[in-house]
């Protein structure tokens, strides 16, 4: 049995104009220490999938098992980096990260929790901004705080919902490199949601393409055969990169025209 098993996940939202079927039977597996990506068009149901695995909403059908244990509700062992950051505006960078650290380490003494908080802030290079409020930060910095908060939960599985989509291309590259470095150091299990094919190939071991909704499903996993540690430079020239990219783009294009 895989570390994370998602089987036959269905979800529809009841709206005024009748129910809209968003997910129509999603299957997915993730191994421990793996970074997997889910790539799909906007509106296909990626955030819905994240919310389901996080336990924030309940599926209509199907099941989610983490280490063989069914998911029945939210919990810090499935950390989330939300698409719209969701930083608490009344807390400083420190306060936002500390909230997570304190929540999962309630047994530790305060000094130890403070040390851990500082460690995660330093990890995303935000030590100089630690006392700033979210509104005083740039988009890229906010995104870093959200990542630090997600990591600070020390989750078994970190769900990252389009973590870099709201920042400019240059910042995005920096953040991707940062994530690559952090993940290389810690090897946590990450499910990365993105709408950027190149981002997925750069970062992930395995990529699940998502068909556009309604009734979205995931296509067969595409293995990225690139060795680690990865460097952004020259990577697009490698045959393994080209192969993964072609498979991914072709699947997504075919899925769109099939609708």
């Amino acid at each position, binding site marked *: 049995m895989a570390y994370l098993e998602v089987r036959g996940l269905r979800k529809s939202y009841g709206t005024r104009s009748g129910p809209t079927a968003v997910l129509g039977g999603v299957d997915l597996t993730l191994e421990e220490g793996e970074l997997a990506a889910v790539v799909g068009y906007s509106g296909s149901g990626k955030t819905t999938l994240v919310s389901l695995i996080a336990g924030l909403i309940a599926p209509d059908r199907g099941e989610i098992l983490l280490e063989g244990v069914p998911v029945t509700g*939210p919990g810090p062992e499935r950390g*989330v980096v939300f698409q*719209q950051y969701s930083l*608490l505006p009344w807390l400083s960078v420190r306060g936002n990260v500390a909230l997570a650290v304190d929540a999962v380490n309630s047994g530790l003494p305060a000094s130890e929790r403070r040390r851990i908080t500082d460690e995660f802030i330093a990890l995303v290079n935000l030590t100089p901004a630690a006392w700033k409020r979210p509104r005083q930060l740039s988009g890229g910095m906010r995104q870093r705080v959200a990542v630090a908060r997600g990591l600070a*939960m020390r989750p078994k599985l970190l769900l990252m919902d389009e973590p870099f989509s709201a920042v400019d291309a240059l910042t995005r590259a920096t953040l991707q490199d940062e994530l690559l470095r952090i993940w290389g150091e810690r090897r946590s299990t990450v499910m990365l949601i993105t709408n950027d094919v190149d981002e997925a190939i750069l970062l992930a071991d395995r990529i699940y393409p998502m068909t556009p909704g309604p009734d979205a499903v995931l296509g067969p996993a595409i293995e990225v055969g690139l060795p680690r540690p990865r460097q952004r430079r020259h990577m697009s020239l490698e045959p393994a990169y080209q192969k993964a990219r072609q498979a991914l783009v072709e699947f997504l294009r075919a899925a769109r025209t099939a609708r």
Partner: protein
Amino acid sequence: MRIDISQQVILPLLGAACVLVIWSIVSVSVAPDLPSPGRTWRESQRYVLEPFFKDGEMNQGIGRLAFYSLVRVGKGFALALAIGTPIGFLLGLSRRFHQSFDPIVQFMRPISPLAWLPLGLVIFQKSEPAAIFTIALCAMWPTVINTAVGVRSISPDYLNVGRVLKLSRFKTLTRIVIPATLPYVFTGYRLSLGLAWLVIVAAEMLTGTPGVGGFLWQEYNSLVYSHIILSVITIGAIGFVLDRLMGLVEARVRID
């Protein structure tokens, strides 16, 4: 800079001058009993220039009278917040509580202070607690309603953060719900203070307690009409200052 001065100083002064002119015209034409601005000033001079003199229970400088009223309003306002804030949070947090008590709140909200005061007198047998009871009862509704609306408009994103972290009910309340609601709560407080100040005049008039409102009513009965105008201006000025002060507090807790 020049535009600033003309807009923030000259124009308001122009508006005030207009009112003075109209007041003068009315006092010489249609309402001969209404004291003119000049006469009002002559007869009120002592109350303003020696604001803290005291000749008797009801004949005191305007500063002293205002102080009595402010203390009374302060007590009523504090009581309104102490009762209104928790009720507001309960209304916002609990569906059951909302279903049980929201109709009562909507029912009691429009009741005038004039209706509550006699009831307060019946309950407390004394004018001072009756006045404070009335102020609190009339002033608490904006706090109740704004707090409840604030709780219910907390972004689900913030609550989801708490859910993922599995915060306890108490921690969710203190770390997420209360900070997220605070701006609404303080808007409620500002409106409540305005109402409390509005009610004080009626409460003092009916109970005859010393204060700006009590003074106003007494001077009406003793036919010293210029002092009515003095009281009215004092009430307006204090109300304005209170609102500005609460506005400053409100701006401090605003998040964005």
